[in-house]
């Protein structure tokens, strides 16, 4: 852990590039900063590099060049730095990625015990309060396969929150859900935003972007095409490509 709380932006991304084997350039000289407590929504057509950007933030993808600093810790080749950053950054995936062979409680306890070195009792206490927060305390003893998609995703959010992260990343967290379950997951995300969690959200839910975001980035071809507040973005977009995209999805 760092001794002093770090001042300045919690996420600083400068000039990162990522080319996948096969030559697809997912990110090209991409830079941005995220303030503490800010909710940044990233939108764009599929293949625009928005998920890659998110996955670079906790080192699930290696960048080819440029730098990423999270809460003062550089994301570099030091294993220790990577581990520290992963402790501070929670992630929620499109396909939930719960551990199917463990109960809901064990899913959420696991990293608290192994990474945060809590006792099982301390972890379970935290887990039960988080399950209450995401609205499914009665599912503690269930296995993931016994839950609906919306419930699974809420467990996944609780699992990430159990690490007490400073930043939460959401990678199309509602894209794999049946329409009637999207609302319950978005509700949890809105609550988090209201509580001041720093969030980077890749989503196709424009209603959520409009209501919750402090800033919206529109990406295409691995670059930022347009960036601004939700009002600017939805009511008065400047770029042609942004207008085209919005007209297609709204």
């Amino acid at each position, binding site marked *: 852990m760092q001794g002093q709380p770090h001042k300045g932006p919690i996420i600083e991304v400068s000039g990162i590039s990522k080319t996948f084997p096969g030559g697809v350039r997912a990110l090209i000289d991409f830079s941005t900063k995220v303030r503490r407590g800010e909710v940044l929504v990233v939108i764009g057509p599929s293949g625009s590099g928005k998920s890659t950007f998110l996955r670079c933030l906790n080192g699930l993808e290696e960048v080819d060049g440029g730098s990423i600093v999270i809460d003062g810790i550089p994301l570099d080749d030091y294993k220790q730095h990577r581990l520290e950053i*992963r402790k501070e*950054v929670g*992630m929620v995936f499109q396909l939930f990625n719960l551990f199917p062979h463990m109960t809901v409680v064990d899913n959420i306890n696991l*990293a608290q015990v*192994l*990474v945060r070195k809590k006792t099982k009792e301390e972890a379970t206490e935290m887990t039960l309060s988080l399950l209450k927060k995401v609205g499914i305390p009665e599912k503690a003893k269930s296995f*993931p*396969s016994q839950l609906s998609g919306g419930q699974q995703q809420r467990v996944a959010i609780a699992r990430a929150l159990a690490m007490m992260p400073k930043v939460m990343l959401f990678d199309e967290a509602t894209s794999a859900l049946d329409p009637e379950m999207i609302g319950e997951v978005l509700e949890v995300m809105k609550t988090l935003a209201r509580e001041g969690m720093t969030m980077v959200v890749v989503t196709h839910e424009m209603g959520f972007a409009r209501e919750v975001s402090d800033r919206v980035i529109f990406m295409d071809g691995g670059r930022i095409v347009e960036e601004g507040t939700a009002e600017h973005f939805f009511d008065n977009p400047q770029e042609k490509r942004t207008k085209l995209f919005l007209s297609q999805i709204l």
Partner: protein
Amino acid sequence: MMNKLKLGGRGFVGTILRRSTLIDILKFLLLIAILTFLLYRGTKTLGYNWQWYRVPKYIFTIEEGRFILGPLIEGLLVTFRIAAWGLILALIFGLFTALFRLSHSFVARVVARGYVELIRNTPLLVQIFFLYFVLAPIFGLGRLVAAVLALSLFEGAYASEIFRAGIVSIHKGQWEAAHSLGLSTFHTYRTIVLPQAIRRVLPPLTSQAISLIKDSALVSTIAIYDLTMQGRTVISENFMTFEIWFTVAAIYLVVTVALSVFVSFLEARLRVSY
């Protein structure tokens, strides 16, 4: 409503199962009858004199109320010992070789690959001889140790491919979730990947364990008195070739079928959880 439907479904499947089981049993009995007939005809033309009544004393005898193991069962106990140690070591070799092959280290991958290819592409018999006649004197290994090592190295190479298949079958989202929570590679393997992978590869691992028990017959070539060797010795004394080999085969069959049944039971137990 749901319950009723489910029960109805099970009843339907049950009827089909029972009918097909009956037909299967009839087919099986018919097959046995044909085989027995052929064997009878064959031995008759050979003029073979069946002496099954002499077989039991090679399995066990009772003298003065005391139970005395026959040579075949003593051999079986040796087979058990070799197979049990061989299995434990084979699983360890297999697991570590699989992890080596999937590791980031170039050296580990080359070593693991070399081991698997070397073992898979040479006969087990040659490996047993090599270990016993070449390596055992150098390192001062006993007969049994050499046998167990040869067997476990051989089966471990196959087991490693089974483990590897199981590990790579785990969705990469599981790795990503574990890493995003800050779990190390070791913790991810131990708590997330291996528990799921091993459940998936239990059936092929069972086949490998059965192979190991059967392949252990080859250690009789370095004069270890296992089931096969005892059978051979008994035959050299009394010339009941057919009876003893049939008995030996039946004992192997009982052991391997018991193992299969045990693993099916284990699989069913493990499946309940998710």
